[in-house]
């Protein structure tokens, strides 16, 4: 500041013009928090990007070249997408009808409180719970066998389905609560008007609710997908971490903390971020193609 303002009148002038634009001592209160994030969020990201181009051996792109030439590494993109996309879609398809029903309830709080529990407990606890519950001697298989639906226990652990179900248990409440906040934002009068004009429930949904909800649902899809794509503990504990559920975050973790190749680990983290961003961009662009016009007012 002092370097900018050599004499007192000028300094006052600078101060006042800054204050007129909204910059004064009060504004500076945000500096510690912003500086902290620059240091521990933005800088590590840039540093990671930089060291990903500084491989242990080879040219600048050797880390990326290695990732895309080794099936053990590049297959992780596919195996993670194979988990995250269906789970996100299923979560959204279940969450929307439930949210549309729950918004009509007066006492939503009991339900939302119950659904917040799995989110709060987190993936590690859900993994341990599912290890008990879905195991060959667990209640789930026992119930199915007692009901004579199956003759021998279904194998739901240490394969694709274990991870899928754990992502369903933690992901569905997350998707539902986000959807509910968008669904509650739609004015019920619009639907009532359509009903008065004789529209049935399916056509009310298609012509009134869906266009209004689409922007919110697209964002919900993106947030849920990004969460599912970064699955880590449940893929190790409930999946087959050396086989079909070798997810991309596991590959990055192994590169960093088992091979101590931070360049490769950062390259994998960057690729992970790029794939997430790619899907988000595709979804948001698709939303723009499907529907143009005023959004639900949450934009």
């Amino acid at each position: 500041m002092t370097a900018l303002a050599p004499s007192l009148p000028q300094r006052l002038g600078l101060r006042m013009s800054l204050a007129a634009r909204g910059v004064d001592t009060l504004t500076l209160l945000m500096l510690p928090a912003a500086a902290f994030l620059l240091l521990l969020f933005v800088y590590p990201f840039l540093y990671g990007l930089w060291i990903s181009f500084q491989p242990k051996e080879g040219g600048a792109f050797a880390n990326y070249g290695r990732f895309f030439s080794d099936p053990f590494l590049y297959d992780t993109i596919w195996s993670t997408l194979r988990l995250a996309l269906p789970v996100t879609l299923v979560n959204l398809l279940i969450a929307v009808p439930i949210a549309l029903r729950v918004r009509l309830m007066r006492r939503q709080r009991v339900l939302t409180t119950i659904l917040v529990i799995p989110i709060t407990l987190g993936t590690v606890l859900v993994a341990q719970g599912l290890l008990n519950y879905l195991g060959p001697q667990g209640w789930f298989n026992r119930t199915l066998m007692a009901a004579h639906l199956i003759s021998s226990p279904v194998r739901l652990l240490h394969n694709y389905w274990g991870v899928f179900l754990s992502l369903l248990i933690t992901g569905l409440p997350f998707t539902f609560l986000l959807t509910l906040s968008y669904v509650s934002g739609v004015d019920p009068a619009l639907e009532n008007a359509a009903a008065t004009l004789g529209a049935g429930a399916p056509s009310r949904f298609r012509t009134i609710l869906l266009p209004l909800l689409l922007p919110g649902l697209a964002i919900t899809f993106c947030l849920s997908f990004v969460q599912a794509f970064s699955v880590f503990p449940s893929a190790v504990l409930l999946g087959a971490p050396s086989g079909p559920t070798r997810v991309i975050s596991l590959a990055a973790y192994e590169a960093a903390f088992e091979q101590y190749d931070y360049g490769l680990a950062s390259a994998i983290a960057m690729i992970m971020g790029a794939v997430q961003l790619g899907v988000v961009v595709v979804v948001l662009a698709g939303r723009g193609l499907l529907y143009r016009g005023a959004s639900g007012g949450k934009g």
Partner: protein
Amino acid sequence: MVQRPSWLARLWVTAVWALVGFFILNLFAMIATVVLDSFASRWLGTWLPLGWTTRWYGSAWDEFQLGDVLIVTFEAVFLVVLISGLLGVPAAYALARRDFPGKRLVMLLFLLPLLIPPITYGIPMATVLYQAGFAGSLSGVVMANLVPTVPFVVLVMIPFIEQIDPRIEAAARVFGANTPRLFLHVLLPLLLPGVLAALLLVLVRTIAMFELTFLTAGPTSQTLVVALYYAVFAAGVRAVQSIDAMAVIYMATTLVWLVLALRFVNPTQIVGRAKRA
């Protein structure tokens, strides 16, 4: 609501509620197996355990050094809550009260750590923390956990501060209150409910934050959730009941604070952090 109670509509409603019921039933059954197993003397191939005991809690406490782990957990969580409050609340106040050039960029800076999953930014961040010598100790764990919690406090507090009328502060100024008195007698009492709610949510999230703690913790700075992960990972070394006893202790520590937090906030706020996105 105008509704035609056709059988199709009723079937649809029933199906939706059946789905909700099925999900909640499975959720509770899953939690119940953990709790029951932690009190089971032996549970193999039957619907319920053969006998009951509390000895697994003692053995889990000793085997996993839960005393130390709990102390580390509370130290880390306390520091994270304190520092994210000290950094986040003033920043939220500045952002709620002032409009300045580049504000959108600053908002983006506070939004990104909440939108990007921890494991994506955690690996480069852990690398930096290891090279700076912080990772592997409590300070590294605290720093890593602050990355999502500071923006969380900021984004929860901004709407809360915006709904406080700035004329109240102006009135206090007119009556001659200086900045410390204004803060102590006017702002603090007004902000306290919001700060309390935000910090309780930070507390719950930090106890359950696995990825960032996992990437930065050393052997002496493991929090409860990371210790639980290692125990489940090495299943077979210890009795399952012992791991389940630890899981119950973890659940209890998390849910106590969740119940407390829910007295002040709406459950949707726990995920609805990115509403403005």
